[in-house]
Structure formats: structure tokens, C-alpha cells
């Protein structure tokens, strides 16, 4: 069975997802067990695939036993494994987290179906990452998108429906662009297998058709990734979705889209393509990246709703990912990949912590965070750690990301990017500090009167933190923000291996 692990990575959660809603008829908790176990198994399999890749290099698994390019192939190298581990781990954490969280956000009779769709969402993401066939990416992209639309529309407020609808329209346009781009590639090369494409493409690099194919694929994926002007579905989608969904989507969805973009840009097309094509894609991407970073930070600063603020900050982080990609150097790529991991952790922890607040108070306005440090010390500690990490404090993951991107910018001779990174850090620091300040230093609403009485030794507010099933994943991920900030060498060395292969 060991050699079938790649297939099982997808098949187990897929089939589990399909039966999850059926066993949920007995009791919805069984659905939860199914999803938790399935995502955990996927996580373990991802780790074991990492082991295999480290030992023997690229894994190729032939679906149905058909040799590629005639059949569909799973092609797993460092890059896939890296993303797979992130996705499966965050999905697992999200599953644990949802156990109590969905009690307040989703009706009982919907829960089994929620879990089915949740697991399908995750399966789709993993399916996109693991496959070595470009059309297969599209198929799994659709699985994950469809479930994503429904999950967003599930939010409690009615704006969730509009957010879900807009996401659907934008997502479908993006996916269709992607499909169209694949069509152009297929028409020119006659193949759909990524490795085969990479081998057959070079002779067409200078054709107009391939330029068009590239443009449509990149724009299509950029819509999915929510790169700045194309990503206006993202803030509302993350804001109004149920907490678990926001967290998992922010931590995994955009990461997989970024993966697909990297895969297409550097494996299907290669650095030679960018050298030979008459257009300077690098600068175009760079401009969008910088715009995303700045607009994301500035818009985040202007928000009064915490989830929306985090959503815009995600937009900024996506800008960082694109920035690293557009530098087209090994260091830049390491930076991008490290941001993939780091933003997954930070955003996961932040959205989880916000979900805990929603669970206890039902509110998401920043105003509402005043004095929460005493009521929910653990959740807020996690929020603070992740928030500090976002601003790039050393020994947290955020620092590692920014460091790499800054080094890469200077290496590529783009000095002017460093002040931009710094400026965005400054803005990030301002909007996170504002919240951390209210959490720990401001009195809770309704308790201001106590403060004015100079009552030094009043009885402390009774802590009423979220249940353990929410706290544990939140806090674990927050701690990971520090662990991978200190032992950054582990993910970085993996990212470096992936980057070297991509840019060889």
C-alpha cells in the first residue's frame, strides 16, 4: 500500500466526504469524527510523502496504471509536498476547531452536510496540488471552488449570500479563463501533462498563441488568488463566511492558488519563456504586487470590522507572495514559499482567535475587543502572538518572510522595494497594535466607571475563554508561529530545494 499513498491522500478524504453526511444522520458528531480523522490521515500521509521525496526525489504515480502523458499522473516534488503539508495540517486544525465553533454558526440539521462540503473543499485543494496534469488541476479547482462558494454563503449574516455570489461569479470567470488558457496550450502542443508540456513548449515560446495562453492562465489564477485589482471578492467572502471557513480558506485556499500560479509560471513555462517573450511580465507582476501590498495594508487600516481587516491584510500578504514570485530569483521564490507557510499559520491563528470571540460575544467589530484580554486570555494571547508575527517581530515567522523578501529585493537590484516592505510593516504594526492595545489595555465596555475610581485592587474579571477544542488548535498554531520563527531553517531549506528545482 505504501506505493499507493499518493492516491490514498486524495481518495481517503474524498470517499470520506461522500459518506460523511450519511453517517451524520445518526448523530452529527460522527461526521465531525469522520472529517477529523480523514484530515489527520491526510496530514500523516503528506508527512510520509515528504519523507519519500526527501529520500528518492520526485514521485510519479500513474492513475489507472496509464503511463503519462496518456494517463493522468501525480507528480510530487518538494513544492507539492510543502503545500500539501500546509493544507492538510490547517484542514485538520480547522476540523478540530469546528467541533464547538459551528454550534453557534450553523444549524444542527446542516452540520453533516457542512462537514461533507468542508472535506470536499479540502480534498479539492489537495487534489489541485498533487496532480501533474493541468486539466486535472481545473477539475479539482472546480470541486474546491464550488464547495467554497457554498461555505461562504453559509455565513450568518445575509451579506454572506452576496459575498458568496460575487465569489462564485469571479471564481467562475477565473476558472474559465484558466480553462481557455489550457485550451490554447493544448492546441499548440497537443498535451495536458505538465512535464510533457514543459518539454514541448519551448519551440513555441515566441508565438502569440502561447503568450495569450500564458496571459489567460495567469489572470485566471490571479482571480482565484485574489491578486490586487482582481481580488475584490475576497474581503467580503472572508468577512461573512463562518469563522472556521474564513480561517481555513484564508490559510489554505489562496495558498493553493499561489501554488498553481507558481507551478504554471515556473514548471509549465520556465525562466526561458520570460526571457524570450517580448513582454516584460516581471514588471507587470511587480506593480500588481506592490499595489496589493500597499492597498491591502491601507484598506486594513480603515476597517472597523476585524474579519474584514484580516481579509485585507490577507490581500497584502498575497501581494508579498506575488512579489517574491515576480523577482524570479531563488531567494525571492524562497521568500514566497515561506510566506505561503507563514501566512497560513498567522492567518489561521488570527481567524481562529476571532472565531473564539464570535463564539463568546457574537460580535466582530474592533470596538468589541476592548478589555477582552481579561475575559479570554488564551485566545487573545494567541491573537497577540500572531499579530506580532504579522508585523514582523524577530523570532516569529513574519520576520522570516519579510527578511527573505527584503534580501531578495536587494539581490535583484530593486532597492525601492525595501522601503515599501518597511512601510507596509509600519501600517501592519499600526493596525494590529490598535487592536492589541484595546485587548490588553483598555477597559471592557461597561467597565469604564470602575477605572475612574482608581480601584487598584479590584477583583479580576472572570475569564470565560472559548472551549478547549477551539483553544488548542488556536494556540498550537500561534505557538507554531514562534517555532517556525526560531527554527526557520527547516521550512526554508525545504523551500530552497523547491525553489532551486523551479528556477533551474
Amino acid at each position, binding site marked *: 500500500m505504501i506505493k499507493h499513498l499518493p492516491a490514498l491522500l486524495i481518495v481517503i478524504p474524498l470517499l470520506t466526504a461522500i459518506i460523511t453526511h450519511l453517517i451524520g444522520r445518526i448523530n452529527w458528531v460522527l461526521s465531525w469524527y469522520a472529517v477529523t480523522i480523514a484530515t489527520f490521515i491526510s496530514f500523516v500521509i503528506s508527512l510520509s510523502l515528504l519523507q519519500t521525496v526527501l529520500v528518492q526525489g520526485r514521485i510519479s504515480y500513474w492513475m489507472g496504471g496509464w503511463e503519462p502523458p496518456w494517463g493522468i499522473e501525480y507528480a510530487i516534488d518538494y513544492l507539492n509536498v510543502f503545500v500539501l503539508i500546509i493544507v492538510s495540517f490547517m484542514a485538520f486544525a480547522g476540523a478540530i476547531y469546528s467541533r464547538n465553533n459551528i454550534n453557534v454558526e450553523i444549524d444542527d*440539521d446542516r452540520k453533516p452536510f457542512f462537514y461533507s462540503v468542508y472535506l470536499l473543499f479540502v480534498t479539492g485543494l489537495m487534489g489541485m496540488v498533487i496532480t501533474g496534469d493541468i486539466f486535472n488541476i481545473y*477539475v479539482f479547482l472546480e470541486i474546491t471552488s464550488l464547495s467554497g462558494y457554498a461555505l461562504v454563503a453559509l455565513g450568518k449574516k445575509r451579506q454572506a449570500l452576496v459575498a458568496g455570489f460575487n465569489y462564485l461569479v469571479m471564481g467562475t470567470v477565473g476558472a474559465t479563463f484558466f480553462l481557455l488558457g489550457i485550451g490554447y496550450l493544448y492546441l499548440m502542443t497537443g498535451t495536458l501533462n505538465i512535464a510533457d508540456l514543459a518539454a514541448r513548449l519551448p519551440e513555441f515560446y515566441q508565438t502569440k498563441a502561447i503568450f495569450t495562453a500564458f496571459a489567460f492562465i495567469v489572470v485566471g489564477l490571479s482571480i482565484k488568488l485574489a491578486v490586487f485589482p482582481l481580488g475584490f471578492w475576497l474581503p467580503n467572502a472572508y468577512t461573512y463566511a463562518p469563522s472556521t471557513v474564513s480561517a481555513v480558506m484564508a490559510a489554505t485556499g489562496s495558498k493553493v492558488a499561489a501554488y498553481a500560479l507558481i507551478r504554471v509560471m515556473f514548471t509549465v513555462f520556465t525562466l526561458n519563456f520570460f526571457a524570450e517573450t517580448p513582454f516584460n511580465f516581471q514588471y507587470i507582476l511587480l506593480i500588481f504586487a506592490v499595489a496589493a501590498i500597499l492597498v491591502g495594508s491601507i484598506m486594513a487600516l480603515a476597517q472597523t470590522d476585524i474579519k474584514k481587516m484580516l481579509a485585507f491584510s490577507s490581500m497584502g500578504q498575497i501581494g508579498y507572495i506575488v512579489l517574491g514570485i515576480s523577482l524570479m530569483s531563488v531567494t525571492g521564490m524562497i521568500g514566497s514559499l515561506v510566506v505561503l507557510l507563514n501566512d497560513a499559520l498567522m492567518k489561521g491563528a488570527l481567524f481562529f482567535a476571532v472565531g473564539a470571540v464570535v463564539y463568546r460575544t457574537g460580535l466582530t467589530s474592533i470596538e468589541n475587543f476592548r478589555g477582552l484580554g481579561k475575559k479570554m486570555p488564551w485566545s487573545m494571547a494567541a491573537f497577540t502572538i500572531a499579530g506580532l508575527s504579522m508585523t514582523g517581530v524577530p523570532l516569529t515567522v513574519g520576520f522570516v518572510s519579510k527578511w527573505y523578501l527584503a534580501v531578495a529585493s536587494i539581490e535583484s537590484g530593486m532597492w525601492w522595494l525595501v522601503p515599501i516592505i518597511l512601510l507596509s510593516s509600519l501600517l501592519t504594526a499600526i493596525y494590529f497594535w490598535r487592536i492589541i492595545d484595546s485587548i490588553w489595555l483598555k477597559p471592557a465596555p461597561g467597565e469604564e466607571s470602575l477605572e475612574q475610581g482608581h480601584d487598584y485592587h479590584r477583583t479580576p474579571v472572570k475569564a470565560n475563554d472559548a472551549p478547549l477544542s477551539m483553544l488548542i488548535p488556536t494556540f498550537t498554531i500561534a505557538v507554531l508561529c514562534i517555532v517556525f520563527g526560531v527554527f526557520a531553517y527547516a521550512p526554508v531549506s525545504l523551500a530552497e530545494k523547491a525553489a532551486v528545482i523551479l528556477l533551474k
Partner: protein
Amino acid sequence: MIDVAIPLFLVVCGIAVLLMKDLMSSIMIFSVYSLMMAIEWVRLNAVDVAITEAAVGAGISTVLFMIILSRTKSVDESKKSVNILALLVAVGVAAILLYGTLDLPNLRNSNIAPNTHITPYYLENSYEETGQLNVVAAILASYRGYDTLGETTVVATAGLCLILLLRGRNSKQSTKDTQKDRVTNLNKLSVDDAGVKLSEMNPTGADKDKDIIKKTVTKFLIPFIQLFGLYVIVHGELGPGGGFQGGVILGVSVIVYSLVFGLKESQKRMSIKTKDLLVSSGVLIYGGIGVIALFFGGNYLQYNVLLPDPKFASTLGIMGIEIGVGITVAAVMITLFYETVRLVDND
């Protein structure tokens, strides 16, 4: 000549769809558009695609649009001003596409890459390797069987998403003025049975006498439709057809039944729970066959290891998965109908 005319007609329909003020006519034109598309595909010898498009595009989606329309407003009330930004984007996209077509190879040419690189292998070996005469079915179910598993999952996902969104108490946090809106809107929909509601839209009306005739005819027809559906599912290996097309036909048979006899009657025949089970069981059959292949020492979805004779094993496996696909597709088609109609009942 017809090869020039049909696409032109498509364009006309496509533009007309967007210009129509009345949504119902818009949908009707869209249905015509789909049919024309199916005809175009028959012209292009893509028979499988044509059948699917006719069943899905012209059939199911039209019904779906109409159901939804009966639940919402049927007039497009927006002002018809030109959206400059949208126009610019659209023109930009068109320009890039046009630029790209400049050096695309001519169509209908047997020397272009798609016809010389991978496909010849399929055409040459598909019968030997999979036992399928219909190469489309061979690729669909075997060479790219994993894609089809994904595709079946997409269908199941859509079904589950629908159920997720439509079932349950639907309590959104909304403000008072919208509550009022909701009440007034719901009053407009006097509903006790979706079948009645839908037949009201039918200009022939729900006349009692005609009703009996309708019911008798339907009762007589349904077994034939279903038999045809099953035939299409299984027949895929020899000629056009397969799980999707057959599944859609099966699903339509149930929808027709509930349109005529009403939802309650139809749910006596097939309960919601059974239907939910069927949505899943199709994918389970498909995925399960793949897993069984693992135990026989093959790769995932490698059917030819299931029996000593690889060709026969493959044929059997493909038939199995076609049935799986058919079940899921049919069940999801029914879901589309059941759940949208049920939503109104719950109010």
C-alpha cells in the same frame, strides 16, 4: 454553409439573451442557444457532447432557471446603460484573444499538434487496452478516468452544496425592514405544492380534465424514459452515451413525474433520504472500484487487474463506473428539483 450559419445564429442568440428585458424570454432564448450549440456539436461530430449539452443545457438548466424564476422576479429591472469599464475589459480580453488566434493553426487540419501527439495512441490502442469501441468513453472512463471521478465529485459537490444551502432553518440575521420585505414577497408565493405552481406557469393551465390525461400519459411514458436512460448509461462502450447523459435522462424522468404528480407523491416513490444516499453512492461505487483495484495489485482506478482477462475486466470496470456516474448525476438532478421546491414549502 450551415457551418457558417449555426455559429452566427449562436452569436445572435447570445446577444439577444442579454438584451431581453423579460427574464422568461431570456431563458427561452438561452434554451434555444443551447440547442443550437448541441446541433453545432453534432456537426462537429462530437455526439457525446451534443447529447450532454442537449440534456443539460437545454433541458436541466432551463427547468432550473424556470424554477428559480418562479421564486423570484421575472423582470430585469436594471437600467440599460452601457457600463464603460465592463466594455473596456471585454474589449481588452477580446483583443488579447484575437492577438492569440493570429498564429493559432487552422482548424480541421489533421496535422495540428492535438491530432498528432497523444490522440493517435488512444485511437490505436483503446480497443485493445480497454475494450471500448467508443474512444470518447475509453478516454473518459479509463485513460482519464481520474478526471471523470473528479467530475462526478463536482456533481456530487453541487448536490451537497445545494442541500447545505437549502436545508435547515435558514435563519439569517437580517434587519427589520427586510423582514417586512420578506413577508410581502412570500405572500406573493402562495404555495402548497410546487407541481401546481409550476404548472401555473404553463400556459395550457392546470385544467382538471387535462390533468388526468397528463397523469396517464406520464405514467405510461416514465418507464420508457427510464429504460432509455439505463440504455444510454450502459451503451457508452459501443456508441455515444454514458453515465452523464443517461444519468441526466433518469433524473429528468423523476422530475417529470413530480411535475405532474406533485412533490409529495413523487417523494413517496423516492424519499429525500434515499436520494441523499444515491448522491453519495454513485461516487462511492466509482471510487470504490478504484480502491478494489488497489487490492488486486493495480494502481488506483486500474480496472484491468480485476479479472484474469484484462480486456473484459476493463470493460466491466468501466461499466461499473458508468453506473456510478449515472446514479450520482441522476440523484443530483433530482436534488436540484426537490430541494429548490422544498425550500418554499418550509416557509
